[in-house]
């Protein structure tokens, strides 16, 4: 019976050997078409229903009395999961009782348990398989007391392999041995390496056992086709040095899959004697086979380095670097280059690679110089720096900085005054990466007087330079800077650093005569300000429409001019608003007080910004002010206030949202408020609070869209109250289907409760769903759940 299935397995596997043409496997035999299938199925079903298998049908001893009944106590599958057929999960204690009962009967009982396994398509052996596998895991616990049970289990599994059980059952047993097998079972498993159908699972079990190379080596001469590839692969995985000669012969095999497998096995074994043959095989190979062989050769080189055979490894890398010159194989050269760099005593290969026009090779060369050189790397780089052209000096400086070796600092600082700007910038960046007070002072001194890219590099460097002392150094430089551009750059750096110990010098920038500097100060304060800076920030916001602003554009850097000219006064206002929004939550009450006072006489554009800042503050005082604005005279500000209220961050805003939704004549404001309520319900709170909020939405909303959104949140609240709120929605044509789906989701967990009133409500709701919905899948799901509840 098993032969039909096994032959099919073999047929399918042929597909691996095809290259361009992949033959389509034959159809898998169906249950009813299998030889003896119907008769066997009937026999097996009868046996299973009876709690045991017929010894005659299996040709083995019957299970011990009670074993089948014991296995039958495993809970049935297909309950509890949302997916039909999902595994029901018994707890470990329940299963332990079963294991211990099975194990009491020793090997004989386990053999009988294995005897309950059946071929795929021949019946339901779920419980026996489940007990066998989970019991295997149980006895494999690292506990000396389990040793006796482990022996009984593995003996039983091995006994099955030599029985006349179907091969598919033996394959299942081998899959268990893959996890629990050990050296004493290896020989018996090895006998199956010559079996066309069981070679693969047997090999996997032996690879798991590990010390089994002898068995594979002995099997290799007789192995053919797919089995030969399996055995070769295993020899490679087990790194069997004794197989090298045979594997080298296989490099010339007529079958390309075998050749590739041999090459890969040799690469993993790591014997230098195979190098030339592997390189030659790779040279001759094409397409994907060549790709795999290249990788095998690279793996060989890595293995050789690991045993300190640098000479052979270097030879392999050099050969690949020289011969894989097709652009399509540049990644192989990249691998070779990295290997060479780790072995060479000079930088010639890397420096040459850095000058290539190939982006990918160049990038890897640079990265390798940073991370792939040995302990002498810094010295080699400094030697190269002395002799290098400007372009190369810049790259070498970047590399030296990235290596973070303090030994390079003197050379880097020396390059800060190089005639070439690119070199100077590279030196600034390298110094900044290395860090330390000396570097910080040098870079800050440049920032005070520099312009353009050099200033940008210095400011960026200060922004990211490690060390608490950098804040003070940058702030001192800020005071010294005579031009707006350095002041702006240094303010930006202090902001990025969150230099909270330098708030005062940064806040002083708010009074700068240059508008660009003021904006930079605001942006920096957004990241670091405390309460003490708030009044000055609010003042700027209030006055940003100041008629002086346009005249202040003179002589500020281009970026700021663009910012302000493109957006008129939005730049300054935007920066101030962002700053305050960032600061407001940290000092909510104080910020709200200042903003409310400023609101009184602020121009409308700035008042809108101030209202948004109140939203960020989020305190009671701010909420009251926003509510007042929703009822004000200015329509634009009412809109802003409605948005802010709708986005209010916590439940403190809920009552006002509801009030706005119920009383506002503006439909947009109603919707904003309702959406705010739905969001609050979604974001948190107890189930009761959520239902209360959503109930208010349902009663207030005039449009179906908001009711649908509310149902979307409600469906994740599995309570009776939630269900009771959803059910009436079935009567509303606009939201009936959404309500039906929500009820299904709410009812699912409720159906598992035991309270009668809950189950009654669930039943009523589901029955209404089955009648109301027009979607068959929803109706089916509801009916199914209903059936469960009725049980």
């Amino acid at each position, binding site marked *: 019976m098993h032969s039909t299935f096994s032959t099919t397995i073999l047929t399918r*596997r042929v597909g691996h050997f095809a290259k361009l043409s992949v033959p389509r496997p034959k159809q898998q035999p169906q249950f009813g078409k299998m030889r003896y299938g119907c008769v066997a199925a009937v026999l097996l079903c009868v046996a299973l229903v009876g709690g045991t298998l017929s010894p005659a049908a299996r040709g083995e001893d019957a299970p011990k009395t009670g074993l089948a009944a014991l296995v039958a106590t495993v809970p049935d599958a297909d309950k509890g999961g949302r*997916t039909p057929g*999902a*595994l029901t999960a018994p707890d470990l204690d329940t299963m332990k009782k079963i294991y211990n009962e099975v194990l009491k009967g020793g090997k004989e009982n386990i053999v009988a348990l294995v005897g309950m396994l059946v071929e795929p398509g021949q019946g339901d052996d779920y419980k026996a398989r489940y007990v066998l596998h989970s019991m295997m*895991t149980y006895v494999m616990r690292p506990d000396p007391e389990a040793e006796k049970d482990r022996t009984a289990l593995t003996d039983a599994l091995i006994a099955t392999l030599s029985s006349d059980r179907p091969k598919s059952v033996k394959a299942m047993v081998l899959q*268990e041995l893959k996890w629990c097998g050990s050296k004493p079972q290896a020989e018996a498993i090895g006998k199956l390496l010559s079996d066309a159908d069981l070679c693969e699972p047997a090999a996997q079990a032996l690879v798991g056992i590990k010390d089994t190379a002898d068995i594979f080596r002995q099997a290799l001469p007789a192995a053919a086709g797919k089995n030969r590839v399996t055995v070769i692969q295993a020899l490679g995985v087990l790194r069997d040095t004794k197989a090298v000669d045979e594997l080298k012969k296989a490099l010339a095999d007529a079958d390309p899959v075998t050749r590739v497998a041999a090459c890969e096995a040799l690469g993993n074994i790591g014997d230098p004697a195979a190098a030339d043959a592997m390189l030659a095989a790779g040279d001759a190979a094409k397409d994907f086979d060549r790709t*795999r062989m290249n990788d095998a050769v690279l793996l060989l080189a890595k293995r050789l380095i690991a045993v300190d055979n640098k000479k052979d490894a270097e030879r392999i890398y050099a050969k690949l670097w020289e011969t894989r010159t097709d652009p399509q194989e540049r990644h192989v050269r990249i691998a070779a280059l990295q290997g060479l760099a780790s072995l060479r005593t000079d930088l010639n290969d890397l420096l040459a690679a850095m000058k290539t026009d190939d*982006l990918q090779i160049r990038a890897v060369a640079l990265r390798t110089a940073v991370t792939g050189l040995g302990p002498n790397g810094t010295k080699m780089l400094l030697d190269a720096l002395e002799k290098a052209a400007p372009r190369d000096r810049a790259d070498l400086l970047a590399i030296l900085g990235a290596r973070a070796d303090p030994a390079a600092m003197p050379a880097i600082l020396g390059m800060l005054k190089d005639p070439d700007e690119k070199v100077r910038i590279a030196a600034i960046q390298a110094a900044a990466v290395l860090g330390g007070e000396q570097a910080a002072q040098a870079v800050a001194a440049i920032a005070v007087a520099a312009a353009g890219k050099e200033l940008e590099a210095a400011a960026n460097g200060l922004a990211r330079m490690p060390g608490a002392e950098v804040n003070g150094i940058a702030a001192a430089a800020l005071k010294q800077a005579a031009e707006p551009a350095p002041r702006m750059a240094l303010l930006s750096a202090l902001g990025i650093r969150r230099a909270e110990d330098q708030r005062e010098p940064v806040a002083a920038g708010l009074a700068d005569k240059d508008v660009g500097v003021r904006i930079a100060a605001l942006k920096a304060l957004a990241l670091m300000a405390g309460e003490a800076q708030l009044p000055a920030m609010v003042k700027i916001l209030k006055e940003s429409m100041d008629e002086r602003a346009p005249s202040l554009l003179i002589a500020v850097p281009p970026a700021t001019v663009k910012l302000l000219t493109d957006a008129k006064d939005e730049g300054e206002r935007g920066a101030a608003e962002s700053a305050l929004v960032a600061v407001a939550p940290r000092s909510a009450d104080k910020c709200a007080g200042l903003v409310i006072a400023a609101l009184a006489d602020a121009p409308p554009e700035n008042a809108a910004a101030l209202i948004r800042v109140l939203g960020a503050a989020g305190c009671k005082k701010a909420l009251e002010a926003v509510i007042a604005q929703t009822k004000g005279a200015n329509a634009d500000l009412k809109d802003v206030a409605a948005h802010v209220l709708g986005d209010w961050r916590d439940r403190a805003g809920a009552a006002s949202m509801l009030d706005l939704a119920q009383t506002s004549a503006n439909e947009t404001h109603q919707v904003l408020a309702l959406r705010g309520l739905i969001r609050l319900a979604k974001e948190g709170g107890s189930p009761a609070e959520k239902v209360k909020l959503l109930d208010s939405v349902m009663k207030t909303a005039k449009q179906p869209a908001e009711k649908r959104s509310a149902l979307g949140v409600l469906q994740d609240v599995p309570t009776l109250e939630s269900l009771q709120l959803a059910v009436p929605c079935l009567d509303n044509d606009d939201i009936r289907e959404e309500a039906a789906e929500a009820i299904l989701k709410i009812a699912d967990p409720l159906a598992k409760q035991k309270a009668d009133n809950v189950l009654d409500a669930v039943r009523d709701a589901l029955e209404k769903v089955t009648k109301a919905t027009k979607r068959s899948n929803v109706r089916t799901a509801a009916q199914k759940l209903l059936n469960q509840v009725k049980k």
Partner: protein
Amino acid sequence: MGTDNLSRRAFLTGVAATAATVTIVPRHCLGGPGQTAPSDTFGAALIGCGGRGGGTFGGLGPNVKRLADCDVKFLDKADNKKVYSDFRRVLERKDIDMVAIATPPHWHALISIAAMQAGKDVLCEKPMTRFIAEGRAVIEAEKRYGRVYQIGTYGRFGASHDRNSILTRKIIKSGLLKQCKGVHFKRGDFKVKEWSGKVNLQPQPIPKNLDWDMYCGPSPFKPYNVDRTGGRHRGYWDYEGGGLADMGQHHWEGPCWTYGKDETSPVEIEAYGAPAHPEACGMWGWVEHRFADGMTFVFASGEWGEPYNRLQQRGVTLEDLDPDDRKKVLAMPDDPPLISFEEAVKTRKPAGGSSWTSHRTATLLHLSNIAIRIGRKLRYDPDKQEIVGDEEANRLVNQPMRAPWHL
């Protein structure tokens, strides 16, 4: 080296190295006089054209041309020009620079590795791998060939822009915490029931258009059943690892970045779940991961058994440090921003979700599933990446593959 014992100096060195690579963008990528600008458009292929295929391909960026589609279910229409059923034939094409991989996860690592061996850049759908050793092999391929690799989930990008996460990461990576008391939870949304497997699949006829042998690939050859495919593959150990493996990479990429666990792994793992079925992924209640620095990650399914009640959520804050150490942390520079796959391809810098970071997230998922499957508390060596003192569990770290597929 695990980061838990990383000195501050070593950390800053790491930051510096990354920062410097930012500064040494090869000028060729910028174009300009005397320099060759990179091509504006990249040739790309999609391997695995089912559910997540289109979305994953979209992650390659706007400047790609879709030259080939490959799927084992294209057996009846493969022309080896535009449509393929064998990914190896796709990788042989010289005009394809990058691939998006959206096959079931038992193929993710092998196709990623093969693509990088063939010189392609890779965007791979999550989860990154099916077991731990696969991740190490993907890392090896990315580094060996200088390729760009990005996992198709972006939680760490979001975390890297969040101020609280940035501060937490600095605190952890500064090495100044004497004992980390942080406990981070992910409760729910693991789709445990939805993506559990059926326990007694029966053979069905193989669809004419499906190369079933290739579908099984490195996994054990089993009789065809539709439930092993089409998204429901998630419920079987042979192809994935249930909802935990599938959703987990989404949930933990961000926390791994925030808590500085993208270069290390936990040292103790304990799970509460039902005894495992040999094929079908089943039910579990929670998994607790403890790191060497004291940090704890908790997976809580909320779908089975008693709820987790051992520890409470607790963040890592400046208050956990001495006043002097707080200043040191605040003075630390931010990490450079993570870069997208598209930018990484153009600049040849590692993408934000490179293999060596995402591998550690995937390792969390795999260790969770091993603990669930084994039913025992595990000890793990994050440097050797081996389970200590449990042979059966360790065999799940590096699982044999069906020839000719192997790592």
